[in-house]
């Protein structure tokens, strides 16, 4: 399964090479050319069959990077200090396994035993600068092998949780390897217009790869594929599930970074309704995606976002439903074919 290969590769923002290699292997047979730009975006071109009505080029993007950590300092005793890369809640990283650098040196984020904690300490949230990674290596070996600037990824195995039913899987970085895997599937089909599949970098540190990719590609229309917030766990008063697991791909009307092009949203809804594909509208005003950077490039690029609901994103382990994933592939492909007739005014 491509999604498994993708989430088992590490690609913290700014260091996406390993994920890019997996994707190049997956798309090579399905495309006409690819390029890797100055920031590391992988831009894959699939030429159109011709006969498109009005829309000449479409960019579909998904980001390769994931949140993670970076080594900032090695203490004299070999303890590794770190900072988050991208938005991580410091409460979720305590007592987790990590892998360090391209050698994937294993380590753990250690915690003082509860027996030794005073009451006040128990109630205090630890800051990142109070945590350390323990590799078990001697201080000398750490100093030799782990230098400041080394990237650290969560060491989480991919696993199928539910074979039938929701077909849930768990792993790290479904945000946005889910989008990458959907996009690889989308590339297997061919379309009347030129399709630019942009596997972008540095989304988690400010939508940076998508911005330059959209400038370079300058498409008529753009879609962004995401793994999005799914906050549907039980609560006393549930006002914000954002999306629900298993209810189909989520379409964005508006988030913190973009108001989606209403024609493209309608196109997605029409396709879903015509094909009987379940979908949901993501709760407005939550989160942000590469579309925020794409839609304001050059003179403006009509953009829309479709996402797979993923629980616990930006933590070491997230959960999604392969049902949602498969529906997302169908919906994106169908919507692209629907777009071959052109975009209404």
């Amino acid at each position, binding site marked *: 399964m491509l999604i498994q290969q993708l989430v088992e590769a590490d690609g913290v*923002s*700014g*260091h996406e090479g390993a994920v890019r290699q997996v994707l190049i292997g997956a798309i*090579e*047979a*399905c*495309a*006409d*050319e*690819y*390029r*890797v*730009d*100055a*920031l590391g*975006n992988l831009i894959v071109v*699939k*030429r159109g069959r011709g006969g498109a009505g009005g829309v000449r080029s479409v960019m579909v993007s998904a980001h390769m*990077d994931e949140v993670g*950590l*970076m*080594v*900032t*300092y090695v*203490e004299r005793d070999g303890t590794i*200090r770190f*900072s*988050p*890369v*991208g938005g991580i809640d410091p409460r979720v990283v305590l007592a987790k396994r990590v892998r360090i650098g391209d050698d994937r040196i294993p380590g753990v984020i250690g915690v003082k035993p509860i027996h030794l904690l005073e009451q006040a300490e128990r109630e205090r949230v630890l800051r990142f*600068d109070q945590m350390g990674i323990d590799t078990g290596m001697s201080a000398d070996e750490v100093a030799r092998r782990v*230098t*400041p*600037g*080394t990237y650290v990824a969560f060491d989480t195995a991919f696993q199928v949780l539910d074979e039938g039913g929701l077909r849930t899987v768990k792993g790290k970085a479904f945000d946005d390897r889910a989008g990458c895997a959907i996009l690889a599937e989308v*590339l*297997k089909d*061919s379309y009347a217009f030129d399709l630019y599949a942009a596997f972008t*970098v*540095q989304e988690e*540190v*400010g939508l*940076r790869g998508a*911005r*330059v990719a959209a*400038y*370079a590609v300058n498409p008529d229309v753009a879609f962004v594929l995401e793994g999005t917030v799914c906050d549907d766990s039980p609560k006393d008063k549930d006002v914000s599930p954002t999306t629900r697991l298993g209810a189909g791909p989520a379409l964005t009307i508006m988030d913190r970074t973009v108001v989606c092009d209403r024609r493209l949203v309608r196109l997605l809804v029409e396709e879903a309704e015509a094909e009987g594909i379940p979908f949901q509208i993501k709760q407005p005003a939550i989160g942000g995606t590469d579309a925020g950077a794409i839609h304001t490039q050059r003179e403006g690029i009509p953009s829309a976002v479709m996402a797979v609901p993923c629980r616990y994103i930006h933590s070491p382990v997230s959960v999604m439903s392969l049902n949602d994933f498969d529906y997302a592939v169908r919906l994106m492909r169908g919507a692209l074919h629907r777009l071959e007739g052109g975009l209404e005014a």
Partner: protein
Amino acid sequence: MQVAEFLKRISEASGVSGAEVEVAGIVAETFGKWANRVQSDALGNVIALKEGEGLPSGEHPRIMLAGHMDEIGLMVTKVDSGFVRFTTVGGFDARTLLGQEVTVHGRRRLDGVIGCRPPHVLSPSDNEKVMPIDQLFIDVGLDASSLAEAVAVGDVVTIRRDAVNLARGYLAGKGLDDRASVAAIALCLELLGNRRHSWDVYAVATTQEEVGLRGAMTSAYGVAPQAAIALDVTFGNQPGVPEAQTLAMGGGPCIGLGANFHPALHERLVATAKAHEIPYQIDPTPGRSGTDAWAIQVTREGVPTGLVSIPLRYMHTPVETVDTHDIERAGRLLAAFISELDDGFARALSVEVKPLRAEGGQGC
């Protein structure tokens, strides 16, 4: 060029973000000594071009160096019965402002002080609280009506501080963030005067960095370089700040590592420092670097960008302190780096398009 002397001169010039004219004049004149052409753009960036000899192919790839010349400062918000109320331009620590001397750039230059109430009249608990900026005021010693004539809302205020040489080559003053880098760029241009280089060098002293990397944004768009190196200052070790969060004063220029920087540029800078026996440090940067490099990298189709930083103590105060040896080393590093840029490196940075099979999609 005497680095300390030049740095003292530009440190004492005024150039609050958006009002960099005075410092820009000195920088343009100095860069002009070694450049073929100096121009400015709509945002006031000083852009000096030093032409290279070109590649064997005849091409002239462009490398841009960027250091910001703006400084943080204050701006008048109200002329209040003989006193001047103000806000900040850029990130000041309110605690450092009490009792500072300033210059108000009104109809004429007015020197003044940021006044504070004497301890005698304060209750014991008053001095345990930080004075918020909206309770501070500037006193230029004029009566209410003269003040109202001389000063208007929107006038810029600079901290008034002569730079001072400390022991072991340290220099302390205002605005060394980031004029230390401007000095390093000037030194680099001077060194390149005696060396061959094939790439064209655009040395840019940028504006408005402290209010959002604005000058870097427009100058990088205008220059459209094949590679860029931003220069800025970073936290030098100082009492009270954990070593883990700082870099060594006198330890040499710091080379940024992280998402903001192109790996090939990072590696080349490190290799150059090693080859020329220039001490250097690695500055791990998880995400946003907060420097001009952040804006330059995402200009147009993306610009391979690097960052060289100079350790500095007491950032964003009027006693910013640098070791001038680190500035000299940064200048030498840049000059060596640029003189060794060649055809191969231009190719290494260019975007390579890899054609796949002629009939796409057949393999799926």
